[in-house]
């Protein structure tokens, strides 16, 4: 619905996994310029060594929904407005029209994507668990805190590691990759470490060495499949999205690869990388502006909705 300035306003609710997010966006009716009016999130954090269970997560989301919604609504009228940067669309625009390869890495998804002819086409993806799930579950093995996020704490711990790169499987299969075997091996190594057994060089190793080795291995795999997609579509730009996209080591490794190809990497921060209401509001409003409607009585919820199912009418 339009506001006093004639801008279209949309509110997006995000409730997947352990995040509850509500975002409000405005689109200029002439230029289409999006402005983030508010973007509020609350995370259900489970104790160290445990994951979040659907029942507890649902209870959290119900308990916090009104609080988060009120915060988003009151913040949207209170100034502090920031133009949106870092959506798929702007990612393309900022790069002088060069279509980026998109690496979508989160707790639920691991995909290499490129846009062509009104669809985001999946070039490669995980064959089993998502890379974020691999990292989250390894944080559980090491009983690292889940606050603010297990992946963030692995990243911080990994900075202290690196004395030794422990040998983990490297599982790239064409354009696809696999993480469950790597997690299994990392869990085995963690058990060895807890039992006081030495590493391959006869010296003891630490949780930090394990985090370092896991990150270096899985991120190298992601860089490889992203580079192959770039070569295929002739792009030297990478856009990283999804919660794992916050990881600065992944951004650094991807940046080194892109620089060698004469390009660059675009990554955003936790406001837009991690699950948020703004991406829902923005995509919903773009769809609305191109005539897309879903009557309430035809609305449903689904756990399975693939990236390439969306017909992107709002792009060329």
């Amino acid at each position, binding site marked *: 619905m339009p506001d006093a300035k004639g801008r279209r306003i949309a509110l997006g609710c995000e409730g997947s996994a352990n995040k509850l997010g509500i975002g409000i966006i405005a689109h200029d009716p002439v230029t289409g310029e999006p402005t983030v009016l508010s973007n509020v999130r609350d995370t259900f954090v489970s104790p160290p060594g445990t994951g979040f269970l659907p029942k507890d997560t649902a209870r959290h989301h119900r308990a916090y*929904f009104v609080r988060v919604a009120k915060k988003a609504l009151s913040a949207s*009228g209170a100034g502090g407005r920031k133009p949106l940067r870092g959506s798929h669309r702007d990612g393309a625009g900022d790069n002088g029209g060069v279509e980026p390869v998109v690496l979508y890495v989160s707790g639920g998804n691991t995909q290499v994507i490129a846009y062509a002819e009104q669809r985001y086409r999946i070039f490669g993806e995980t064959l089993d668990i998502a890379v974020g799930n691999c990292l989250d579950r390894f944080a559980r093995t090491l009983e690292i805190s889940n606050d603010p996020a297990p992946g963030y704490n692995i990243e911080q711990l990994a900075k202290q590691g690196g004395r030794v790169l422990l040998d983990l499987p490297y599982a790239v299969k064409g354009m696809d990759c696999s993480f469950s075997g790597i997690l299994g091996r990392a869990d085995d190594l963690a058990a060895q470490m807890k039992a006081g057994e030495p590493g391959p060089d006869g010296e003891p190793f630490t949780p930090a060495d394990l985090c370092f080795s896991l990150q270096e291995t899985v991120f190298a795999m992601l860089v490889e499949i992203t580079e192959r997609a770039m070569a295929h579509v002739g792009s030297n730009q990478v856009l990283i999205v999804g919660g794992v996209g916050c990881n600065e080591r992944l951004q650094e490794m991807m940046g080194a690869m892109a620089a060698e190809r004469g390009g660059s990497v675009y990554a955003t921060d936790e406001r837009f990388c991690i699950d948020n209401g703004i991406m829902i509001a923005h995509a919903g409003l773009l769809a609305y502006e191109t005539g897309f409607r879903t009557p*309430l009585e035809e609305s449903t919820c689904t756990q399975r909705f693939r990236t390439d199912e969306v017909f992107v009418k709002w792009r060329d």
Partner: protein
Amino acid sequence: MATDDNFPCSLTLQVPFPDARLASVALQALRVDKELSGLVKRELSTVASPSSEDAGQTVLQVDYKATTNRMLRVAVNSFMDSLALVLEVQEEMDVDLIESEKANN
């Protein structure tokens, strides 16, 4: 409601709302989440309150039928969680409340 040989366990809930608009909003919001199990059938409707004749359809009526009492209990418990959220949103965030809060600030 009529008994059904395959769905012998049934329960009818009647949830009164202050007005027909709020009852209708609740109906439309709750209807989006379909029953996930084929062992449970649910019908949602709004009906007139038996106590007042001219206030419109202010009562949300929920008819549940299930194959077993266990399935019925699981489905109704889950529905009550959703209903509680809808009521909380209406209590805390309905249009006129937001407007009056704005006016007060």
